[in-house]
């Protein structure tokens, strides 16, 4: 596989953002943002709609003008050394945009040239193969399906072998097959040395993919940590138990697990904090000869972390 520039001569953090600020019409969208992303990481930028994720990406890539603060990519300032930084970055924007005049293959060759990188047919063909664009390479882009256009967008972001790949909602509205193929490919190029920054609304994807995550809310960073550490912030493991028959009260020794009933006492939910575990609850139930039909445990997800930190219930947001 062709190596990105990160494997040649780049040192230091892949991305350093210091006191980045951006306001539109007096409304602050990015507010004194500071982030440091190390080379080789897969880094997630999460947050509700309007948190400032896309604006941050636009400021990093030069699509938006900075008002305050600085951004450095592998030590290069994105304003003073914009040619170098833009050469190092590959970005897939949230909106599917393309020049309708050209075919997939031609557009990829053009994009490579835009970055000052001579067309590398082997790398281009590898991208086309990995993203299953082979049958469509001679088609005009507007004739592709939505999923294929997304695949083309990924290839476009990677065709000049960037050291830092930024993916803004790459899997929004795409089918399971593409999502899986995309993440497999992202993992592969990350192993080859490419640093990846991504935003996604699918928190389970971020949970699986990211080494570290920053949660943004109202333009500010409200949490930054490794995915594992963020998960530890929420001690909300739960145990759900289906009983043989309806039970209105449970033994007092289970009170420490804060039991709550559903379905007229047929189903009980217990909260497990710290060192507590499911076996303790079940032991009490068995010893009191309360019949158990089914059990289910639930570990905290990034969704819980997100809700805990931002106070926004995404299920309600989605329903709206």
């Amino acid at each position: 596989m062709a190596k990105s520039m990160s494997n040649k001569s780049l040192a230091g953090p892949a991305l350093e953002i210091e006191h980045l600020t951006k306001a539109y019409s007096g409304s602050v969208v990015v507010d004194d943002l500071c982030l440091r992303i190390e080379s080789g990481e897969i880094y997630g930028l999460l947050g509700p709609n309007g948190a400032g994720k896309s604006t941050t990406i636009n400021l990093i890539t030069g699509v938006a003008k900075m008002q305050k603060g600085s951004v450095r990519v592998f030590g290069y300032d994105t304003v003073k050394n914009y040619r170098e930084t833009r050469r190092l970055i590959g970005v897939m924007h949230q909106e599917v945009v393309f020049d309708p005049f050209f075919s997939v293959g031609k557009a990829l060759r053009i994009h490579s040239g835009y970055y000052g990188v001579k067309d590398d047919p082997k790398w281009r063909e590898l991208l086309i193969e990995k993203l299953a664009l082979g049958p469509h390479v001679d088609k005009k882009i507007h004739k592709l399906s939505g999923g294929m256009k997304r695949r083309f967008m990924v290839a476009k972001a990677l065709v000049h072998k960037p050291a830092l790949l930024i993916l803004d909602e790459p899997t929004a509205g795409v089918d399971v097959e593409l999502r899986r193929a995309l993440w497999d490919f992202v993992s592969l190029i990350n192993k080859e040395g490419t640093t990846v920054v991504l935003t996604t609304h699918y928190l389970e994807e971020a949970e699986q993919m990211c080494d570290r995550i920053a949660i943004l809310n109202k333009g500010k960073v409200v949490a930054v940590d490794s995915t594992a550490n963020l998960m530890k912030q929420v001690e909300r493991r739960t145990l759900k138990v289906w009983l043989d028959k309806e039970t209105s009260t449970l033994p007092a020794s289970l009170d420490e697990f804060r039991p709550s009933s559903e379905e007229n006492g047929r189903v009980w939910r217990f909260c497990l904090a710290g060192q507590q575990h499911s076996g303790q609850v079940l032991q009490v139930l068995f010893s009191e000869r309360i019949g158990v039909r089914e059990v289910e445990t639930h570990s905290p997800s990034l969704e819980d972390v997100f809700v805990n930190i931002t106070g926004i219930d995404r299920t309600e947001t989605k329903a709206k």
Partner: protein
Amino acid sequence: MLYLLPFWTLLQKEVQRWFVSPVQTLIAPMITSSLYLFIFGLSLGKRISVGTDITYIQFVVPGLVLMGVLNNAFANSSFSLFISRYLGHMVDLLVTPIGPAQFIMAYTIASILRGLVVGAAILFISCFFTTLPVFSPWLALLMASLASFMIAQLGIIAGIYSDSFEAISMYTTFLLLPLIYLGGMFYPISILPPFWQGLSRFNPLFYTIDGFRHCLVGVGDSAIAVSFAVTGAISIVLFLWAAALLGSGHNLRK
């Protein structure tokens, strides 16, 4: 590599863009010009005298050629910029190492090339209607290049300021076409009353049309040097304006 290849790629792309739609870019102006040549050259032209040594059709041909040059040079830069902003793929350029200088030169050279190719095609068509008494072909080529450079800058400015199809078409309908038609394309301004003659001299496109005609067939209302000086000065002003817009990212970067 961060300077030359991105510029060269953008230039190639801009040229290929109008090559992939030859009906719109090449055939249409050739047909329009043929109609003008038929109407004003073969039918009405025989009854019109412009008070010079050349026939009316010989007088009209340079104007038609330069109209093709100006229209197409303007259309290339303005449409390409506008449509890439309108469809959103301008971001594909904004995130690349292409700087304002490379950007403006690639769009300008592509526009000049398109203007000159269309102008050459119209000149070729005119050979079927008349024979031109060629005065100075190299000066004519230089004036056509300078005129298309100037109008390409206007196209860049229009492409950056326009936010709708209506806005971009207003530049053509209310600015370019009136200035071309009133710039002595079909008549020498010397036949106009003094007031209109004086007013015509404030039309910047008069100097491009008259200058080109003077260089091509040796007949003009203004000295060749004056035409080059005025066109050159306006070109510099428009270039600085376009460069300032691109440098600041006005209407391009959020």
